[in-house]
């Protein structure tokens, strides 16, 4: 039942019971009392609002940050290799949770824990991986330092790989096989900014540990900070320019003094050079990346792994805010130093549909051209991804 307000009662009194009420002076007194009450109510309402607002303002924001992303993939790929297995599978490829804690305005912790392929354990297809866990210190407005386990500052996807941020159901093969994304290490890194749009990273961290058994492929050398051999560390330096809307230009150089970590005398130091450009103007987008490794030693040279190179170019166009199409041409070769054909190429075309800015549905079609004797997959992929 709706309650009559004091004002309504007064009004009713004025209209219907005027003869009963006392003098005009009493009425004025009553109105003054109501005004006073109204003022008190407003003061209390404002005080309540201010208290609520102060609790959620920057200074009172929760120091705990939680987030995550994930992606489910359906692959329907035919293998052109005689006797090779097709790939028709549903895979919850990644389930990732972020957890961060802000100790002070200048000191924070960040972590990323991932379950790959949904089910891990002995003889199971998946894995539980700690991909980031570091403490970062702001040294001043332009410089910060981190120590712990972090993603190497290289390539486009290695640091930013939430599914709604890139085209293609699967991450591009060039960054996968050459960079090699996702690539995390333990160590220390300094990050700084200068000018209007320049930034740099300088890190000292665990190196790769490849071997002849893995054809010195860089991806197989990731130690993932799991009892990683640290006899020969790696140094990474990146410079990046983002001083113009829609444009990113970046280049990374990395040096490793021993790619095998064990003093194998037929393999030695290695250098990585990676450069990429991203340009977005209105609905049009373009990404291009080039990466190359130079490995010393007779071991890698004997099988052509002394040079491992790849590149891709990816134009895209957003037909609406929620729907974009893309094409990508990828070329990579983990034994580019030999004279035989060991080069892979892959062309993808497809679309992303974002029903929400943090949710994406993807589909693409891929065609591969692989060296003789290697798996060569053609077909389509469908995926759904999210971040929060």
């Amino acid at each position, binding site marked *: 039942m709706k309650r009559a307000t004091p004002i309504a009662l007064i009004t009713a009194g004025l209209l219907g019971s005027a003869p009963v009420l006392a003098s005009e002076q009493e009425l004025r007194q009553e109105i003054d009392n109501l005004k006073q009450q109204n003022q008190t109510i407003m003061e209390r309402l404002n005080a309540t*609002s201010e208290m*609520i*607002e102060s609790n*959620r*303002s*920057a200074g009172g*924001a929760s120091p705990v*940050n939680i*987030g995550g992303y994930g992606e489910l993939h359906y692959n329907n790929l035919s293998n052109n290799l005689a006797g090779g297995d097709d790939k028709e599978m549903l895979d919850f490829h990644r389930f990732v949770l972020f957890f*961060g804690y*802000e100790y002070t*305005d*200048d000191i*924070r912790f960040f972590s990323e824990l991932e379950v790959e392929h949904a089910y891990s354990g002995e003889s199971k297809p998946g894995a539980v991986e700690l991909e980031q866990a570091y403490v*970062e*210190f*702001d*040294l*001043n*407005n*332009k*410089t*910060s*330092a981190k120590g712990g386990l972090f993603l190497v500052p290289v390539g*486009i996807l290695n*640091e*930013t790989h939430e599914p709604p*941020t890139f085209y293609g159901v699967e991450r591009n093969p060039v960054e996968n096989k050459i960079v090699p994304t996702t690539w995390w290490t333990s*160590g*220390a*890194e*300094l990050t*700084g*900014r200068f000018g*209007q*749009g320049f930034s740099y990273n*300088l*890190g*000292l961290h665990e190196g790769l540990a490849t071997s002849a058994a893995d054809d010195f492929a860089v991806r197989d050398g990731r130690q993932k900070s799991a009892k990683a051999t640290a006899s020969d*560390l790696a*140094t990474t330096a990146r410079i990046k320019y*983002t*001083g*113009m*809307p*829609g*444009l*990113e230009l970046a280049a990374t150089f990395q040096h490793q003094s021993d790619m095998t970590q064990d003093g194998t005398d037929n393999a030695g130091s290695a250098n990585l050079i990676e450069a990429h450009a*991203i340009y*977005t*103007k*209105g*609905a049009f987008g373009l990404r291009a990346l080039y990466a190359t490794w130079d490995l010393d030693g007779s071991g890698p040279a004997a099988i052509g792994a002394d040079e491992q190179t790849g590149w891709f170019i990816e134009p895209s166009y957003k037909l609406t*805010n929620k729907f974009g199409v893309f094409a990508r041409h990828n070329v990579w070769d983990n034994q580019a130093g030999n004279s035989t054909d060991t080069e892979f190429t892959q062309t993808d075309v497809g679309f992303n549909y974002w029903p*929400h*800015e943090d949710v994406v549905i993807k589909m693409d079609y891929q065609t591969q051209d692989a060296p003789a004797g290697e798996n060569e997959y053609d077909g389509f992929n469908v995926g759904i991804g999210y971040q929060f």
Partner: protein
Amino acid sequence: MKFTIQLVFIFCAGLLSLPASGEVHQKPEAFLQQVFENQIPDPEMLWITGELRDTAEQILQHKPTSLRTRYWQSDQRTAWILEEIGKEQPITVGIVISDDRIETVKVLIFRESRGWEVKYPFFTNQFKQAKLDSELELNTDIDGITGATLSVRALTKLSRLALYFHQHVTHKS
């Protein structure tokens, strides 16, 4: 041993820099003084309730976290100081609107560890003269910053929200 020396060098290079301080680019009071040339009008309060709240939720893609917001008005010109979280921390932004078009967008306090480029004029100048279309979107493209998607998104949302609030307080009968 040489790596230990390198490690020490990296940290010393940073520690030799200036002492740490917050990223307050301009205090809100200073922003208002600049906007209104030291004649700041009394603040007014807009309660975000009813349809206003529904539309704000549509723009922000989440429920508004404030019950109300202050604004400063002089004729058909309004100034707003709003906050939105980019990835983890709130970004405080000053927005001035004149005749239904954005006059100024300025990042006043930036607390995120990434996306720092949004504070520079080369980015915020894109918002100048933008207005709302019938879908409550900006009528101009805002080119983003790679790796700073969430900060870019936060500023874009706040600009749309300020334009919508401005329309509400200046067009009401």
